[in-house]
């Protein structure tokens, strides 16, 4: 039956999917791995790989030479990776992660990316402290040791089998294990940590039988001279081995020598005063880096100051201090009994990076000659945050094999760089793995006098010719030659060429070209060189289409107290338009100020001064205008009575609508409350969505099968609010999902929809007169879509207007929210087969093309659902003749299974999918859709097929040939006809 429905759907819906040969041409997919947390270099079968685990829960192998992804495996959502080890001999990659439920997960992968086993180590107690440590012991990483407070668990590395667990139970003196060491004869596992608290703190050492976990002796405690740091676990160095930790004040290094034979165990606990090492050192920020070195330890005294301490003397070997503000990134490479430590830090000037390398042996440390400058390929990446080293052998000119270094550098923006031999081999913009916001940005249209617009209507030959001749603008470049990596573009004739601007969690903003996915520009905002957090990004559309669109970023510094500022970037080039505009507080809401007619005229005439202003509502509800000029104030004054906004106070369960009024201050405005909507006290999982004000609507009515019409309730100010509510009076009924449709200007409740026995979080999407809400059924947890369609009570259409202008303008005009209109609603609900993370309706230039609802599924795929599937009027039972004529399918409570061609992502998976965005193109048939999460997928979507463009496989050659043949035929037959006519006349 389901198969039959699927077949029927396939037949009815047709294929709006790509053809095989269009894959990669009309769509593209960008796979990210995220910012690297752990990395191990390894060369296998002649391929140099670096195995990484990242902050978005990905385990991946990257080609160390090219940076390409060899394979990638995502961990379940929410897991945080805490450890990684590679056992090349065993062909194993072991990764430890902390699951959301508190379990410690250990996984073993082959070096080809296949999962061998996974095992969960549950916390020893439900309230066990976090974090736990995960260590891989043995040369072949043959065992996984989970250290969790006082508990030690051993998992056999080959099978994933949990071998034994041991917990130090000593009453009040409970231990916190931090390091583990397997003796050379593989018989004893020695664990190190600290025990006790306050003045009774001690360094702890326990010996356990490797096979059984039985303690070989009592736990050895060495009393420390002062209270020990309880935040971080103790660190164990390589041979000569020391257990190292900090005191509670983090001003002293506390360490104790140790040895396999236990000779040093229980030796004297020594301390070193870190204050003597640097004037800016020690204090709350000091911590020991978990880098295993022979008899030495790395201590980060502050963000920009790292010290290598020789524990045999307790004195520092090497100090690294960033010359400019910024952290020092440390990487290490263990080579037998030796280790190499490299540090990368900001040099002077701050834009450059310097590297310093030290060889650490049991006898001391030696600074190696190394390239002092670290070249980064391009873009702004921020300070270095982490460094990973690897080695590889290479032959020099004389055939002598040398060991060379290879490094993976992670910068503050999350980008990952491959470095080798003082060269930057590649860079991956891994900030894109954590997108916060995605916006489409339309490039400006070229003025007719400026450039030859690049468009398919000129034909391939002309384009090729203009490229060959180097005609400016022929390839879509700016005529002035300004281009950011070839990224600055003019709009093409079809509107396919757009920029996709992504604001990332690392505050970096990247602009990608929507047609090929290349990075057009990227920017890491900063204030006076200080790193900042980007709070909001607003696209400020250009008032006329010949100008670049601006991007307004509201940022705040990371240092306390926060400093707020607004930064305006040129959306096309990524250049900063103006100096940062300081703001006294955070911004609640912002909107562009409509440009006046005079300003528009000046812009059309070629004025370069920014004529568009921006209004920012600050924390105290005053309005800050950008730029703060009289002209902006006048423009805002002219428009303020028609600008409204609302703020959702989720904690208080209140939505407030605001308008604007003059304030006492000269040219001052403030936001004033116009309306308040109070949610029920037990409402939770609030979500809110509004109509896209730029959405084009073509038809104010919906024509029915019986030639009747339904008048859509079209109101650009509609706001949909979704929440879950549990009726306390009847808790047995279960929670229900409410969708309240409000008018954003007046606060009037337009409609209230209740889906009983459902729970949030509610995801909403709006278009025209339609609201779609996604929730889960209770108690089955099945995802479902609820559909609400609002219609006005029938009024007689303006037939004369339809006759003369083709449409009923009165019905399409923007109606005032103050007009009393009571719509009626039709609603229905469907179960869907997959959980939905986000959804959006396709947008087209004129709104003529039927819309599709694009669903970002939890599985990482994007599903395109035709609006005719989601129709509130799908008849229950046999459809009538009118229903059939209208194409209404019989109602089925379950939508699915869906034909494969509706999955527009095809073989791609967008991991951690979190949003869908749609943008209209100039071609009415086509909408650009973006699915973003850890990956990014962009495609063109044509819900009604490409009715306004030639198919890509259209044979232009045959057309040209046919036209030429017709031309030749016409000439020949004309000649023949004349000759025949002449002969007939002279017969």
């Amino acid at each position: 039956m389901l198969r039959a429905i699927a077949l029927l759907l396939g037949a009815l819906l047709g294929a709006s999917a790509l053809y095989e040969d269009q894959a990669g041409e009309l769509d593209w997919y960008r796979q990210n791995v995220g910012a690297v947390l752990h990395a191990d270099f390894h060369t296998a079968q002649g391929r140099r790989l670096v195995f990484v685990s990242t902050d978005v829960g990905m385990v991946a192998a990257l080609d160390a030479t090219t940076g390409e992804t060899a394979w990638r495996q995502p961990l379940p959502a929410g897991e945080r990776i805490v450890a990684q080890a590679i056992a090349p001999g065993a062909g194993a990659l072991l990764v430890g992660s902390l699951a959301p439920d508190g379990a410690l997960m250990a996984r073993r992968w082959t070096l080809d990316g296949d999962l061998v086993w996974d095992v969960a180590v549950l916390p020893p107690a439900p309230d066990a402290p976090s974090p736990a440590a995960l260590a891989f012991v043995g040369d072949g990483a043959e065992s996984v040791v989970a250290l969790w407070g006082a508990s030690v668990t051993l998992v056999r590395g080959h099978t994933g089998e949990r071998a034994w667990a041991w917990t130090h139970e000593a009453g009040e003196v409970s231990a916190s294990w931090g390091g583990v060491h397997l003796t050379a004869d593989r018989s004893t596992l020695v664990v190190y940590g600290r025990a006790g608290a306050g003045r009774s703190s001690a360094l702890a050492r326990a010996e356990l039988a490797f096979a059984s976990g039985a303690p070989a002796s009592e736990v050895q405690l060495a009393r420390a001279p002062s209270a020990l740091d309880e935040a971080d676990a103790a660190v164990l160095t390589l041979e000569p081995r020391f257990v190292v930790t900090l005191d509670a004040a983090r001003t002293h290094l506390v360490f104790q020598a140790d040895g396999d034979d236990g000779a040093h165990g229980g030796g004297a606990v020594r301390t070193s005063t870190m204050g003597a090492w640097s004037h800016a050192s020690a204090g709350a920020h000091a911590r020991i880096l978990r880098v295993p070195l022979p008899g030495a330890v790395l201590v980060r005294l502050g963000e920009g100051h790292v010290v290598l301490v020789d524990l045999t003397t307790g004195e520092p070997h090497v100090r690294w201090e960033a010359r400019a503000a910024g952290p020092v990134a440390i990487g290490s490479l263990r080579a037998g009994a030796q280790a190499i430590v490299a540090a990368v830090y900001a040099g002077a000037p701050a834009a450059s990076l310097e590297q310093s390398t030290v060889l650490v042996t049991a006898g001391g440390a030696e600074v190696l000659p190394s390239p002092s400058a670290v070249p980064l390929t391009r873009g702004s990446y921020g300070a270095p945050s982490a460094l990973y080293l690897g080695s590889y052998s290479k032959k020099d000119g004389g055939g002598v094999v040398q060991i060379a270094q290879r490094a993976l550098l992670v910068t503050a923006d999350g980008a990952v760089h491959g470095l080798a031999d003082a060269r930057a081999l590649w860079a991956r913009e891994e900030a894109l793995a954590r997108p916060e916001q995605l916006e489409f940005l339309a490039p400006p249209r070229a003025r007719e006098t400026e450039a030859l617009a690049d468009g398919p209507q000129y034909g391939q030959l002309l384009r090729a010719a203009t490229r060959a001749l180097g005609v400016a603008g022929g390839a879509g470049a700016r005529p002035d030659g300004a281009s950011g990596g070839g990224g600055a573009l003019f709009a093409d004739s079809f509107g396919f060429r757009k920029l996709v601007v992504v604001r990332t969690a690392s505050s970096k903003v990247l602009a990608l070209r929507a047609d090929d996915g290349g990075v057009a520009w990227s920017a890491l905002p900063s204030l006076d060189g200080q790193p900042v957090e980007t709070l909001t990004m607003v696209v400020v559309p250009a008032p006329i289409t010949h100008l670049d669109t601006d991007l307004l970023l509201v940022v705040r510094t990371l240092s306390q107290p926060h400093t707020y500022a607004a930064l305006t970037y040129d959306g096309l080039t990524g250049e900063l338009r103006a100096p940062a505009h300081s703001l006294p507080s955070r911004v609640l809401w912002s909107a562009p100020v409509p440009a006046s007619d005079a300003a528009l005229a000046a812009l059309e005439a070629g004025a370069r001064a920014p004529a568009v202003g921006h209004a920012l509502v600050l924390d105290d509800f005053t309005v800050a205008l950008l730029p703060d000029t009289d002209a902006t104030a006048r423009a805002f004054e002219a428009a303020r009575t028609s600008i409204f906004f609302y703020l959702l106070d989720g904690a208080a369960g209140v939505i407030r609508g605001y308008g604007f009024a003059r304030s006492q201050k000269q040219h001052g405005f403030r936001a004033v409350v116009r309306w308040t909507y109070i949610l029920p006290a037990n409402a939770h999982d609030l979500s809110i969505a509004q109509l896209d004000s730029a959405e084009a609507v073509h038809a104010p009515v919906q024509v029915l099968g019986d030639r009747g019409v339904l008048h859509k309730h079209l109101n650009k100010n509609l706001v949909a609010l979704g929440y879950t509510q549990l009726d306390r009076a009847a808790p047995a009924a279960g929670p229900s999902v409410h969708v309240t449709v409000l008018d954003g200007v007046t606060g009037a409740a337009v409609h209230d929809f209740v889906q009983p026995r459902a729970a949030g979080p509610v995801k909403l999407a709006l278009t025209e007169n339609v609201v779609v809400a996604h929730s889960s059924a209770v108690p089955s947890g099945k995802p479902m879509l609820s559909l609400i369609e609002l219609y006005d009570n029938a009024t007689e259409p303006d037939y004369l207007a339809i006759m003369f202008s083709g449409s009923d303008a009165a019905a399409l005009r923007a109606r005032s929210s103050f007009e009393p209109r009571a719509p009626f609603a039709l609603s229905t609900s469907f179960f869907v087969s997959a959980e939905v993370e986000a959804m959006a309706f396709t947008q087209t230039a004129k709104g003529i093309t039927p819309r599709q609802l694009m669903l970002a599924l939890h599985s990482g795929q994007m599903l395109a659902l035709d609006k005719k599937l989601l129709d509130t009027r799908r008849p229950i039972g046999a459809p009538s003749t009118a229903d059939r004529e209208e194409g209404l399918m019989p109602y089925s409570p379950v939508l699915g299974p869906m034909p494969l061609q509706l999955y527009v992502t095809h073989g791609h998976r967008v991991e951690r999918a979190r949003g869908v965005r749609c943008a209209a193109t100039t071609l009415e048939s086509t909408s650009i859709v973006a699915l973003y999460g850890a990956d990014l997928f962009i495609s063109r979507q044509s819900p009604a097929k490409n009715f306004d463009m030639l198919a890509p496989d259209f044979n232009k050659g045959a057309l040209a040939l046919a036209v030429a043949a017709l031309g030749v035929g016409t000439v020949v037959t004309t000649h023949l006809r004349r000759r025949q006519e002449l002969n007939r006349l002279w017969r």
Partner: protein
Amino acid sequence: MATAISGLTSLEQVGTTYVNARHAIRSIAFLKANRLRRPDLVLTFGLPLVDAKGAGLSQAESYSAHEEVYLAALDLDDAPLAKRCIEVLAGRFPGSFRVRTLQAMAQEAGGRFNEALSAYNAILEDDPANTLVMKRRVAVLESMGNTTAAAQALVEYLALYSSDGDAWLQLGKIYLVDSQYRKAAFCYEELLLLAPTNHVFHTKYADILYTLGGPDVKTARKYYAHSLNICPQNNARALYGLMMCCQAMASAGPARSKDKDDARKTAALLEFASTQLEQMYAGKASVSDSTVLSRMLEGLA
């Protein structure tokens, strides 16, 4: 009135000098359409076209120009030029009936009527419905003075093309020359059917009926009156014929009681015609009293 061809409406516009090929073509076409037999002008315009071998013209126009120049050369007895033209045409259209007809017309122009007639007959054997040749054959026979054969040829022609008014007219003329009035009257009856509003044909038909005399005089009077009805002004021949008919009827003898009324009308018509003629010749002819005339005609029916 001249027929407007290619924007030319009068001979003044055509001019007498060659301007360019396009103008020349238009001028020749104008002369032909208006049946203006001006071989001098045709040569003025056509000779440069022939000399230039049709440069700037389509093939059809070029050969048409050669044909017109050839006919003009025949008219002007310019044999070398005619030969030049016919060689071009015969070379391009070997065996063409049209060219053979043109060659026969050269024989006609040279007075070699028998040869021309043989040529025409030969063409007609191959193309029995060739109107031009059939007409040329009539012309040759007339030129030879053999009106009987010419009439016979015309009858054959009219058996095929009975709507050719010119042929009926020509046949009528031949019969008149041969005093075969009944046959001539038949020809004019056909002409009246083809052109019922042409008062000349009415008048001419009435003339023939009057010539036949007897009862046909009364019918002749009717047709004279009809001619006057169509063309009331400056139609002296019809007035004169009407008067003659009336006089002939008045002098035919005493009228019976039935004809008394007719005799009165005849007298009135005579009076009318004579008055009109007098006025016409006195230069005072005014609009005829059509009311009187119409009443008369009713009475004559």
